[in-house]
């Protein structure tokens, strides 16, 4: 048993540069928020945070290619973490652009705390992508989660929002307990929290691989992660939380949290627990199948668009698990590509929902969208594009993403999973098409008026649409980048 010793780590800013920038921005926004008078804030806080995230994004692209383990293996800076940071930055940028429009209807959201929490959540997400130690995974997860619990309940005058935050918090805390307990058992069986060292220990002591303690630890950990990615049967919180949370935050949860949780899942399972792959593949196969099927089938009967997208997000977690089951490098890079594509698509869709707002509440029933396709042609076009992308119809990015995921499954020999995957895509087509049907094929019922959108959100939607089309029509560059980042993952 080696003694725990305290070593002052070398300060390596390069490995955590994006996180540093995001944190500093968060603190600045908080201070500016406190010291600027209430009536003069307008959207300056949003733009200030935007500058910070864009800087973080640029720094990520600049340090892309760094490959090192920093802070005693706590942080692994490699292509993988860069790609995750890239996704998180895109998610955060689009969320901020949506929030700037959204706060016009809900001025309460326009304060330093909101953007500060958003940025800290992003910091946590980035660290989940680069954590090299179970403890770091947990810290990052909590940084992210606690910020989001608060954000979900940010509409303090709306009972649904409070309910959403309360539900998310209680269940989330419970899930964190599972995760931590799982970590403890893994530590107990291997004597280390370091992902790379766990793998080395298991190579040296193959008899531990099938010990009950380690298996129990992996199972509990799966529960914890499963909760965060909304995997069946840990998905029950999703619709209520997504429906109640402010729309700008719902998109953030659906894409950012999912990306971060999948990043940690991939890193922990493939770096530390690669030896157990044969054991978890079977159960994950089942989870993947059930997650996508339940998500899609229940989404069929939803009439609230936010709830529908919540179930659709469960289904997408199922698709992503297909890549996880495939387990190959191809499958992992497919997950990265899909996460980015899903970020553009889903945030675009939530951005469109955020366009329609008013002081008393939002229009989130499906029937509110009746006839809007021709009334607001550009908005309709954007929403149709995002829906077709989610359904996986070319030339939108969702097609390329699904093609990539399913082909990884086919290649790894999971033909049936791929077959269930495409059957699910057809089921999902029905409810995504229904949005198009409502927007274009039916006459307007209730008088829904779209207030003039702020330029920020317009830019955001254009970015999302360009992202969707770019990834669908010219996917080469990002495909190679995703592949590259898996190849350079530190093992």
């Amino acid at each position, binding site marked *: 048993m080696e003694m725990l010793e305290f070593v002052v780590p070398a300060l390596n800013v390069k490995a955590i540069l994006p996180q540093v920038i995001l944190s500093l921005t968060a603190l600045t926004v908080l201070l500016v928020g406190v010291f600027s008078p209430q009536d003069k804030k307008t959207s300056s806080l949003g733009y200030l945070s935007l500058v910070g995230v864009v800087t973080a994004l640029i720094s990520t692209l600049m340090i892309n290619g760094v490959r090192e383990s920093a802070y005693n293996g706590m942080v692994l800076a490699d292509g993988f973490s860069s790609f995750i940071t890239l996704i998180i930055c895109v998610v955060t940028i689009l969320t901020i652009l949506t929030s700037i429009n959204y706060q016009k209807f809900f001025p309460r959201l326009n304060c330093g705390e909101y953007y500060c929490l958003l940025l800290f959540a992003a910091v946590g997400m980035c660290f989940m992508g680069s954590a090299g130690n179970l403890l770091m995974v947990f810290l990052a997860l909590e940084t992210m989660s606690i910020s989001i619990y608060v954000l979900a309940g940010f509409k303090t005058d709306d009972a649904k929002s409070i309910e959403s935050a309360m539900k998310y918090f209680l269940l989330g805390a419970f899930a964190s307990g599972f995760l931590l307990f799982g970590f403890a058992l893994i530590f107990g069986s291997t004597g280390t929290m370091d992902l790379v060292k766990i793998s080395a220990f298991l190579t040296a002591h193959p008899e531990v691989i099938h010990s009950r303690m380690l298996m129990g630890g992996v199972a509990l950990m799966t529960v914890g992660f499963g909760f965060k990615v909304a995997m069946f049967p840990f998905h029950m919180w999703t619709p209520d939380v997504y429906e109640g949370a402010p729309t700008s935050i719902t998109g953030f949860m659906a894409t950012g949290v999912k990306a971060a949780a999948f990043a940690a899942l991939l890193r922990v399972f493939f770096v530390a627990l690669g030896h157990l792959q044969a054991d978890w593949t079977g159960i994950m196969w089942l989870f993947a199948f059930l997650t996508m099927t339940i998500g899609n089938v229940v989404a069929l009967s939803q009439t609230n668009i936010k709830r529908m997208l919540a179930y659709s997000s469960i289904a997408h977690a199922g698709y992503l698990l297909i890549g996880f089951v495939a*387990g*190959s*490098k*191809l499958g992992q890079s497919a997950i990265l590509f899909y996460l980015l594509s899903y970020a553009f698509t889903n945030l675009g869709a939530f951005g469109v929902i955020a366009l329609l707002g008013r002081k008393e509440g939002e229009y989130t029933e499906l029937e509110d969208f009746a006839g809007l396709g*021709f009334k607001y*042609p550009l908005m309709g076009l954007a929403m149709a594009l995002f829906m*077709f992308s989610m359904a996986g*119809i*070319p*030339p939108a990015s969702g*097609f390329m993403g699904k*093609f990539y995921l*399913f*082909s990884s499954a*086919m*290649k*790894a*020999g999971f*033909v049936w999973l*791929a*077959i269930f995957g*495409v*059957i699910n*895509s*057809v089921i999902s*087509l*029905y409810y995504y*098409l229904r949005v*198009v*049907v409502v927007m*274009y*094929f*039916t006459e307007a019922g209730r008088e829904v008026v779209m207030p003039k959108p702020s330029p920020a959100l317009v830019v955001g939607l254009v970015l999302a649409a360009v992202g969707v089309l770019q990834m669908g029509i010219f*996917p*080469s560059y990002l*495909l*190679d980048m995703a*592949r590259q980042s898996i190849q350079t993952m530190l093992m």
Partner: protein
Amino acid sequence: MNQLSFPIISLVTFFPIFGVLILLMIDKESEDILRGTAVAFTVIEFFISLPLIFYFNNVTHNMQFVELIPWVKSFGINYHMGIDGISLWLVILTTFLTPICVLSSWSYIQKYVKEYMVCLLLLETAMLGALVSLDLILFYVFWELMLIPMYLLIGVWGGPQKIYAAVKFFMYTAAGSVFMLLSIIFLYYYNYKVTGVYTFSILELYKLNIPISVQFWLCLAFFVSFAIKVPMFPLHTWLPDAHVQAPTAGSVILAGVLLKMGTYGFLRFAMPLFPYATHQFTPVMATLAVIGIIYGALVAMVQPDMKKLVAYSSVSHLGYVMLGLFALNMQGIEGGLYQMLNHGISTGALFLIVGMIYERRHTRMIKDFGGIAKVMPVFATFFMIATLSSVAVPGTNGFVGEIMILIGAFRSFPIFAVIAASGAILGALYMLWMYQRVMFCPLDKPENQKLKDLNVREIVTLLPLAVLVFVMGFFPGLFLRKMDATVSHFLKDFNTRYEAYAQQQPQSLGDRIAAVLPASENKDKIIE
């Protein structure tokens, strides 16, 4: 390879997109300018596509006007396009029918004119792209892309039950095609395993030797996907709904080109990729084709609605095409190809005619008409020409196609040919009976007595079709000679490869799948 040293196929394929961009810049209130622009673009598009005929080399079976640019390099997906004797006339048919569709919608479409024209032009690009793609993924992208504008055409400008029809159309076709996608991916990895090359190019994949039992499943996925599109009995139920609800131009495009995508898919992809499985499926497909012929004809006979009648006659006609293709001999396949063009022209004309009378009377029920020939003589003439073409009277295009198919089918399966020939009699029966009830009989309904005959625009719309009926009826050689080299090579290749397969011993399915799929231990190695 490209005899023009100019990317003409890309120009033909994407020229309508250029039209879309222009349309988007025009104010949506100035509807006549929008209509005029759309007509101009589609007519220019037709003329741009004509060099394909003039520079087409009749002698070679190779792909012509080929363009090949890497698209997604890491996957080996290419922007690979080319034309041969199978696709040439279908491309021309598409560029020929689209301006007619735009013209026919001139007064029929009154709301959202701009969006309508944009949909039609997008649809044209998607259809052309699917016809000229030589890369399976590229083809799949265009194939799925066709769905969106057609779905909107039915759903926005359709009849009372448009939503049901549009969603059914989309779901049916998409459900069929996703399994084709899985098959494509499977082929891709199998090809890599055998040859070490990542490619989706069908010209390369044609050469693959696919284990027989796996071939069966792959072939089935392709067959189902294309059979839904054709549509073959019993997968045809979306078609009458879609046709009846769609606006006239939508029906014309649907019957004229979209359905041909199914038969084209059989000939281009399913049959040459899987010769052995195709051969095994032939009795089933021929039976379904014959059932389709008779069933379509019988159901058409009892339809009270003219449009539904024409829709069911499509099921019957496409049955002929499938019977010809699966006869797997020169006459059968060329007849099938010829009948695809005929069907596009004659059924296209019939849908236009039904649309014109509907615009005047706002009903399509046969019982609401009678004696129309007296008040609308020009209309009656065109209607007669289209009817005769559909019935396949000698001298019209329909005769050439049908007789070739029947000769081809008789050589391969005489009994089916005899049954199919009786379908031709049923065809004459329901078409002429409808013509009689609508055009002759006493002119006893007061609403029908003041009907105006066709105006100049409508005559311009129908005239090219009527002329083609006779040109194709009297000079079939003009069209068939361009198909000869390709079709005879197709048959030669198909038969050689079938013989090679027939020598192999079929193995059990489990063994075969295990042999094809990479084992799980070495999958990371395979990716490199």
